[in-house]
């Protein structure tokens, strides 16, 4: 149970920072934290049905759910794509405005358009 509570706390911390933090870099980090909390939720849940690694051929041992591990591998790859593209956008915006503050970026963007 404690694992799920800790994951819940991780999720809330990430979501809070994503919504309320003004730095775009920290927002991207927060997005990573929230994403990780959901990935961990899948992994922990998948490990609850067994304790042996998947497909190692151990006799008599119940292996963890291999399906969730395969799914989360994909989710992590997607997460990396999103993080890298958002960082590329932030670098572009930094080059233009020299700030990571979302409100300043918004305001200067409006002024330029």
């Amino acid at each position, binding site marked *: 149970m404690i694992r799920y509570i800790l994951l819940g706390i991780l999720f809330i911390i990430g*979501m809070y920072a*994503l*919504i*309320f933090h003004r730095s*775009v870099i920290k*927002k*991207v980090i927060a*997005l990573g934290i*929230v*994403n990780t909390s*959901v990935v961990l*939720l*899948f992994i922990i*849940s998948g490990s609850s049905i067994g304790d042996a690694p998947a497909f190692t051929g151990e006799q008599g041992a119940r292996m963890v759910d291999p*399906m*969730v591990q395969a*799914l989360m591998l*994909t*989710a992590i790859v*997607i997460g990396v*794509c*999103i993080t890298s*593209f*958002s960082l590329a*956008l*932030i670098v*572009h*915006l930094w080059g*233009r*405005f020299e700030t990571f503050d*979302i*409100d300043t*970026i*918004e305001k200067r*963007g*409006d002024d*330029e*358009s």
Partner: protein
Amino acid sequence: MNLESIAFIFLMAPLLASGFLLLAKTVHHHERLSFVIYYLSTISGFLISLFFTILVLTKVNQRGPVSFYIGAHHSEVAISYTFSLDGLIIFFVALFISFTSWAYNDRKKTKQIEFSIILMIQLFSIGATLFTRDLFNLFVALEIMGITSYVLIAFSSKVRSSVASLYYLLSSSAAMIFFLLGTYLIYRLTGSLNYHQIRETLKGTAMSPATVFAASSIIVAILMRSALFPLHFWLPNAHAMAMHPVSAILSGILIKIPLIALTPFVQLFDFSQSIGTVIKILGALSAFFAVIFAFCQSDIKKLLAYHSISQMGYITAAWGYAMELSLATEAGRILYTASILHIIFHALFKSTLFLSCGTIIDVTAQRNVYKNRNAARILISADRKHLLTIIAFFLSALSITAIPFFNGYYSKNLITSSFHHQWIYTILFITGVFTTASFLKLSAIFFRPGPVENTQTIRKEKVPVLSYVLLIAALTVTAVYHSPIITGLLSSVFSSQSDIHLEFYESEIWMKSVTTIIIGTILYISIRSRTISHLMHLTETVEVNLQSMLISVILSVTGLGIYLLVRGVILI
């Protein structure tokens, strides 16, 4: 020919083409070779995909929907794909819109190879989203579709487009985390991600908070991509600041795909009718609020972007009502057909509007609807071929305002007449009035006399003749053959011989159209009033920040969940 062996070719062809296009990018220093690979891969990608789409479409039309598995023959772990007729028709439209937008961009010569690479990957993701019947596969397809959209939006040289792309990325990614959370709950509850098995496990089970939260998380994440009120805040800037062909693809086709993907998902739950009710109401509100914001805009592309939200409101209202009544009923089928019809027609006229208005903005160097004057004269003096731009604009503007004999008239009336004697009918009538007023305001750029020196700022832009000819032809054909299209859709999608009575020229519908035009014209004239213009300016300056966008996602998930639970308890 075995259908299984050809079914995936139309999906894989664009993906393969994108691989070859990457090759064209790597040999960019050999200009001629690079361009040969570029044209060969793009055109063959489109043509192969088109050929096999038509082939599969005709076979599915004869046999009904067909399902295949990828990865394994054992259906419990394999990824299931179902090729249904509605999805194939939408994919055909997506191919058409993507091709016209590609032709437009190719003529303008802006980042041609890069644009084509992303476009081809996006086409693949559109197909995957439409046909997959596996929850996690849907997540991956939606994410690919999202990533390609963020990249396409950021292609524009305007810094505002990068900001819009980042906002869309962050809010959409936050929504997709709820999607993943919903997927977790569904997997935990049913032990499967396959729609068929989920349905079998959930059938007849009592409504639990976990099921409701899973459904609402996934539905909200999908509806965010379709820009349904109150999840639409990312759209106006993203669509308005992108390059013109990108706006045409995003508004024309991309925002509709998630809604079609939602159809089989919603039907997994016993409480699908309650979900339909919420989406119907939100769709009507979306149509209404967005059109007011559209009417108040001074930026031409932002005005069009708000209209996309409004028109999506019509589509989702009809779709939601169809789910509420259930697709097993005749009325539900007609409503679902009406929403598909408006998806197709809106895809055509909104893409045409974005492309033609984009050309007008480029030639006149003016985005402001009030400052853009004498556009017709400026366009013709720039190039006589711009007559096509003017025809394309007016054909699509008359279609969106639902003027009789243009395609929007048929799809909109099919939707609104289904809501007769309901409050939504009045809401959609008012929306129609505001749409007329908005497009009178936009059309005024052609007639408003302007100073002669305006002609000195003319930019010589190449006229994308192929795109315009194709779009004008499609708009004309769909308007002329509306009746066989509707009956064909109805009988093919549901494999039933419906005895639908199509009468679009009854005195009541005529009177409604005439009244809409008259009140719309009065509303347009009222812009001159100082109070109205002040109010419009105040509405225009309302901006929603990223924080509110993210909060709206969380509130929507909780709100929908609570509503479904309460309604479930009441119904018990």
